[in-house]
């Protein structure tokens, strides 16, 4: 009986999430577009101010902001991933030309936010002449579970890992050697997403006509939901507003 429970817990951890993604590539004729803007209203929460007290030649001096809510002059909220929820088929996945890369440069993670499908390869690059120690966690409710964690002392070193979250979509990236470094991966198994530009705008195209639940995820502020209907070759508009 006890064994059953234990193995059930194990199954929950291991088996469920590695199910093959249900996404199917099909030809999309009459693909539609969804555009819009994500804005922030109110006073952005204060980021942590962290003193740089090592590797100053590379990381710089003074304080670094961690967990900043970045808002453009026009009120556009940056670092948001806008995506269609639960879309099961459509245009092919689009991988960036150089593959998925997480760079560690001047003691920051670049890019700060990126979207990667499950089971993709991620190249972790250290562009700095100092030790970085990338530590990725998938977030599961309030819990975070280590995906990978390694020291990378050599400048120019590239180490490839597979993105394999089990229960979650959000991957938090920290550097165990520099406590201000922070980055995010949002795991989506389809290509219908957009990481907003510096002004908070987004565009998703090639969408099969229909009505969709649309979500906007921000690493600090969480998730907002919207709904959009797109018609053949049409363009629908949708806005999201985060507030504090």
């Amino acid at each position, binding site marked *: 009986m006890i064994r059953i429970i234990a193995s059930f817990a194990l199954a929950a951890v291991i088996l469920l999430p590695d199910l093959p993604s249900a996404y199917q590539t099909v030809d999309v004729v009459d693909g539609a577009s969804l555009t819009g803007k994500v804005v922030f209203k109110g006073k952005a929460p204060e980021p942590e101010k962290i003193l740089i007290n090592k*590797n100053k030649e590379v990381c710089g001096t003074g304080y670094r902001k961690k967990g900043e809510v970045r808002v453009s002059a026009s009120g556009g909220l940056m670092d948001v991933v806008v995506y269609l929820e639960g879309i099961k088929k459509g245009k092919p996945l689009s991988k960036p030309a150089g593959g998925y890369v997480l760079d560690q440069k001047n003691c920051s993670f670049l890019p700060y936010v990126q979207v990667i499908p499950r089971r993709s390869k991620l190249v972790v690059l250290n562009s700095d002449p100092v*030790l970085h120690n990338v530590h990725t966690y998938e977030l599961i409710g309030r819990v975070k579970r280590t995906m990978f964690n390694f020291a990378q*002392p050599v400048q120019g070193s590239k180490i490839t890992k597979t993105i394999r979250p089990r229960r979650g979509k959000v991957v938090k990236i920290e550097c165990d050697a520099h406590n201000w470094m922070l980055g995010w991966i949002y795991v989506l198994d389809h290509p219908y997403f957009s990481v907003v530009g510096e002004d908070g705008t987004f565009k998703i195209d090639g969408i099969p006509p229909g009505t969709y639940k649309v979500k906007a995820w921000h690493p600090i502020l969480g998730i907002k939901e919207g709904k959009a209907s797109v018609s053949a070759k049409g363009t629908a508009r949708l806005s999201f507003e985060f507030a504090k």
Partner: protein
Amino acid sequence: MRGKCLLLLSFLLLFWSAGVAVAADLARLPEPPKVKEAQAKLGRYLFFDTRLSGDAALSCASCHDPNKGWANNVENDEELSDAYPGSKYFRNAKSPINVAFAETVYWDGRLPGKSMLQVHVRDHITETHFMNMDGRLMLERMKQIPMYVRMFKQAWNAEPSFGNIRNSIREFEKTLVSRNVPFDKYLQGDQNALSSPAKRGLGLFKGRAGCIKCHHGPMLSDYKPYNLGVPANPKIWNDPMRHFTLRSFQLAMGVPGFERAERDVGYYAVSKKKKDIGRFVTPSLREVSRTAPYMHNGVFKSLEEVIEFHAKGVGPDIEPVALSKGEIRELVEFLKSLSGDVIKVAKPADMPEDYTLIEDWYNKRN
């Protein structure tokens, strides 16, 4: 009767040691020490492996880089060596070339060289401002790399241990000896091994310049501490991280006034005798033309500067001597003849980057 014998013996000893001091001369390097191949090969891997430091940031080669004369170098504006992350070193790293013949190690000579090389290896691995490593964790890291497990088996017929790690690096260090040194060939009778200026430099070295008083023997060092009045390097006191690393070192050594650490006290940290404040152990001059910058704090960038400084006789333990520009050049020519073939050792290309997961963890015997 017994007392008299002892007295006689000590007279003899005194006479003998005085005789040595008088007869001190230069000598060629002894034959390279015998090296155990498999152990030295393993040591070479370990020398380049950052997993020997606490946070896996540094290897021995980080501060003793074969491409930088096996130390920090002046071309990269590195007067002072790097240190463990979160600290910065307050001295100029020395080259490990010929450490197998050194009487002592470090600028304050606090550890033995020669047959006890594993001692300074241990110190480098565990010292807070060097590699800050817990030896027990280190050996478990080694055991997580199958290639190392095989190499330890081959070299030591044993699994990785802190002792074997130290001894392997010792064996590797024993391979780092100067070969085909012009000066040594000269001593063996090859008159053409030294240029004429170098020969004149040698004459000065042994004669009027008086370098030989401290720089003698096969390593051209008496391994004794002297205060030459080397100017302070402001980079140490202007960089808080270098300053607190010095404070940390003095704290660990029990140097009175370590909280302020207003100067690098040198050999005093070892002896705790007032007369030793500011004294540093005579460095070997072997390979010296490749190990700029110079002095314990890297304050001089060229050999000319170093000789000019010595000639001024600034400190209490050195006499001034008048040297012309030409004589200085000749001395430099001689010093250049103390370097052998360039020792090139590259980081092993097949060094495993990642640890290997142990499968069947619960049933596998460690």
